């Protein structure tokens, strides 16, 4: 499927820092802020932990997008 198809559900892998972005995602939950369900968070202790190889690995394995947040 592609981006032109309205039913397309992208596979987005996010690396989220435990102390800010992951906590922020928790806060979004506490406030019941709604967002698309296509994103999957991988908790890392710090965005500095994200090795470029993880990003490449995700794309190689078929991820449509990678978000590194910290």
């Amino acid at each position, binding site marked *: 499927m592609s981006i032109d198809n309205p039913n397309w559900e992208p596979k987005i892998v996010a690396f989220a820092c435990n102390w800010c972005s992951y906590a922020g995602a928790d806060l979004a939950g506490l406030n019941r802020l709604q967002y698309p369900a296509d994103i999957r968070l*991988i908790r890392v*202790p710090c965005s*500095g*932990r994200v090795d470029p190889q993880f990003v490449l690995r*995700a794309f190689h*394995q078929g991820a449509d997008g990678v978000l590194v947040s910290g």
Partner: protein
Amino acid sequence: MVAVAQHPNIKMYTYAEIEAVSGYIGNFTVTIRRKAKYVDWDKCNGCGTCETKCPSKNIKNEFDLGLGTRTAIHKAFPQAVPNKPVIDAENCRKFKTGKCGVCEKICPTKAINFEDKDELVTENVGAIVMATGFDLFDWTETYGEYGYGRFPDVVSGLHFERLVNASGPTGGKIKRPSDGRIPESVAFIKCVGSRDDTKGKTYCSRACCMYTAKHAMQVKEKIPGSEAYVFYMDVRTAGKNYEEFYQRGVNAGVKYIRGRVSKIYPRGDKLVLKSEDTLLGRPIEVEVDMVVLATAMVPARGSAELAKLVGFSTDKDGFFQEAHPKLQPVETFTGGVYLAGACQGPKDIPDTVAQASAAAVKVCGLFSKPELATQPMVSEVEAGKCSGCEFCVPICPYKAITMKAIQERGHGGVIERRVATVNEGLCQGCGACVGACRSGALNLKGFTDEQIVAEVDALCL
């Protein structure tokens, strides 16, 4: 206050600011800047002679929000703790012209020291309680309809506190700042800056409903025959005995009018408030002698910089972010750093005291343990793979990586080389070194490359 100053376990640094904080829970090193006071507090006996003789007079007193005046050498107020003065170098004649030194000449204990300099001191602590409080929203920047601060008799609630305070500039008499006349009618406007997302803040400042009720009652009490009007959006009295307190005001004759004031303008020496009484559904005009605005609480100036310095986060309004709004209201996301009072969000005195005691209990709980269990998710080095490039050493934000010599067999003999080693007490497990390690010798326990790659693979199946 005196109990704090006299407590043998409390070491006070007033006129001082936090310069730097390093370390982690249980082991912080704090650098404190003691600002130059130009008065040796060890010698000063607080007699106050200098204040009476200082020729640099008529400086607006910040403590009274400009309602009163002070001298260059001054105490904030007569009951200050410690009860010792400082010299405000910016306004001091000696500093400005080089000539004066009256205080130096008359000081009976020879405590004046014009050569005084800022001084840095270091303290080691295991926990930090942030209690930096609030400032008031500057309404003069945004509220044009209330005159942008052009009308001297439109003041904030804090100004009013100084006017009714027995040790304030008027000795506790409510007087108009413009002409010193005692007002016969005072209007109070609530939610100035609070609950106003177009001009101010979205949140409710929580204490204003109650202090406005108090102010209005004080007007009725101190000025016989006076009128007090309160313009409000809602009256929020959620607290023990709060509703009863508000009803006391209503019974004392305070007139509550539900409506937003749309304009204040002068008529003669009076002020006219235009509003709508939304309960009666008609426009209304009230003429008064003085207007008091219940302005929003905002984080104290410098809060954001301080949060960055100590290393924890702030919320969308700049208040300090608690770790959980319900279950961890005094913790931050940073271990060993706790919050107390209005720095975490607007609150009144009872709530502040409760939160301050809660923060204290958290600190005592931490201190009650003989030692602290470290989290085991720290970096480790596989010495055999480490090339000794030292690239990880400057990367580590906690200075946890050093180099050590190891002996290895190879090339037909024993050779010595240097490899990285991790101090597990200092390592906070961020893993920055792992990403930086070119030879794949570093790994983070609990978040190894294999574990994270397994997660990526599982998600992309």
